[in-house]
């Protein structure tokens, strides 16, 4: 009798979990629906850099985005930007016919319990694999990890202010090679070469973007993305 009750309980739990589990298409559709409400935005931007062997101070500027994939950062000075723009992951998810999505598990990021969705492109291109940590409750992408042929792996961690569709902070983690040029070219006569035995010479660099004063759906002109820097 005890065995029957245990078995029935197990079956009920199993099927209820199956019902609760998200279908990746539904999950992505919810993300896309939320992102569809944003046609363009501009915001104030503060950028922090933690890139090994690059000493660069925090810089402020403005950021502009317009669908489908126009993105521009404007600063008064030199900045290092990741090759993928912050909206690249969402733009990628929007074209649901171009990939196959699979849920590979559940992970907790901060206070959010996220479904881990693997996205495999249907066509051979630069993108090899996309991995998205989606909070099913809010339909927000909390983390994405993109592996491309040209740029290696890049991880994007998003932090959202309450009830916001757009992130207040984005942390890019990129895989970079150690910077090294001949001493003669740098005329760096007094310096000594580091005794780094790490022959792989690859490490991680971090770029943090802090967004504030979002202005959404202002019908930004295309010229904003093309006019030269002053």
């Amino acid at each position: 009798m005890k065995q029957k009750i245990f078995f029935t309980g197990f079956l009920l739990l199993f099927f209820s979990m199956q019902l609760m589990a998200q279908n990746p298409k539904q999950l992505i559709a919810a993300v896309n629906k939320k992102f569809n409400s944003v046609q363009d935005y501009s915001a104030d931007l503060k950028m922090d850099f933690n890139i090994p062997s690059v000493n660069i101070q925090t810089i402020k500027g403005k950021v502009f985005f317009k669908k489908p994939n126009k993105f521009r950062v404007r600063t008064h000075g030199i900045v290092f930007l990741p090759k993928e723009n912050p909206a690249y992951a969402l733009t990628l998810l929007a074209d649901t016919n171009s990939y196959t999505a699979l849920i590979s598990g559940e992970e907790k990021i901060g206070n959010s319990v996220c479904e881990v969705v693997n996205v495999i492109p249907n066509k051979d291109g630069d993108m090899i694999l996309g991995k998205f940590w989606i909070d099913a409750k809010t339909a927000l992408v909390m983390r994405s990890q993109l592996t491309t042929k040209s740029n290696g792996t890049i991880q994007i961690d998003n932090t959202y202010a309450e009830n916001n569709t757009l992130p207040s902070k984005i942390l890019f983690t990129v895989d970079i090679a150690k910077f090294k040029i001949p001493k003669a070219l740098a005329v760096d006569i007094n310096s000594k070469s580091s005794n780094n035995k790490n022959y792989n010479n690859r490490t991680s660099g971090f770029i943090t973007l802090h967004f504030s004063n979002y202005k959404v759906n202002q019908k930004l002109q295309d010229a904003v993305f093309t006019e030269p820097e002053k």
Partner: protein
Amino acid sequence: MLQLTLVELYKIITKPRSYIGFLAVTIVILLIQFALYLQGDSYINFVFQNLQQTFVMQGKILNGNQICFIILQTLILQMPLMVALVTGDLISGEAATGTIRLLATKPFSRIQILLSKYFAGTIYTICLVAWLGLLALGLSLLIFGNGDIIVIKSESLIILRSTDVLWRFMFAFLVAIISLVVVSSFSMMLSCFTDNSIGPIIISMAVIIVFTIIGTIEVPIFDYIKPFLFTTHMIIWRNLFDNPLDKMQIIESLSVLLLHIAVFLGISLYHFNNKDIQS
């Protein structure tokens, strides 16, 4: 003393070789500016190629400040040679022509005579650095505009904002003047010991070249020698573009350079004061 210094300056001005340095600085700077104006992007792409695999570098990289920095690091090794060309001749040149005896008969002490030559040589050095600054920074800013600097080191990069750069350049030029005064003091010291005008110039150039080569080669045995070479401390101007500044290192190097000036000048004064001038 002022009159004597002005006379010495007049002698420098009337010598054609005094203009070689100015001409060389002008040609090199104009060539670098012209080349970077036409093909600066290729240079930038070559230097930053491995970073550009991962990042998009945004901003005006080829700007006046950056060009000035590139010029300084290219020219700073050659500038001492141009200074030695003039200051190495100040005493020995007159000894070779016999005018030093005539000068010694005037109502000035030998110390005054030597110091006036030393001050004239220093003024010449300041003028050369000022000309370098005017062309390298002033003209570059005029052609390429203002902007941030990327300080390129062999294993790292430092990006300095344009608002944080001008004072560094001013101090760098000041350090360049002190460094070049070391060379002028050294060549003048050698000049006191010979009656041949070419000898001190050649020896000064040879010493600078040898010291620079020792500083460049990464052999452990040279690590013990390097701190004692004035050429090691002459390129301390580059440390002014570090962030944060290693103030102790800068002060230490400046102290070593000033000590060299004092020692070279002291030896010059002692020897010239006691020298048996026969020609």
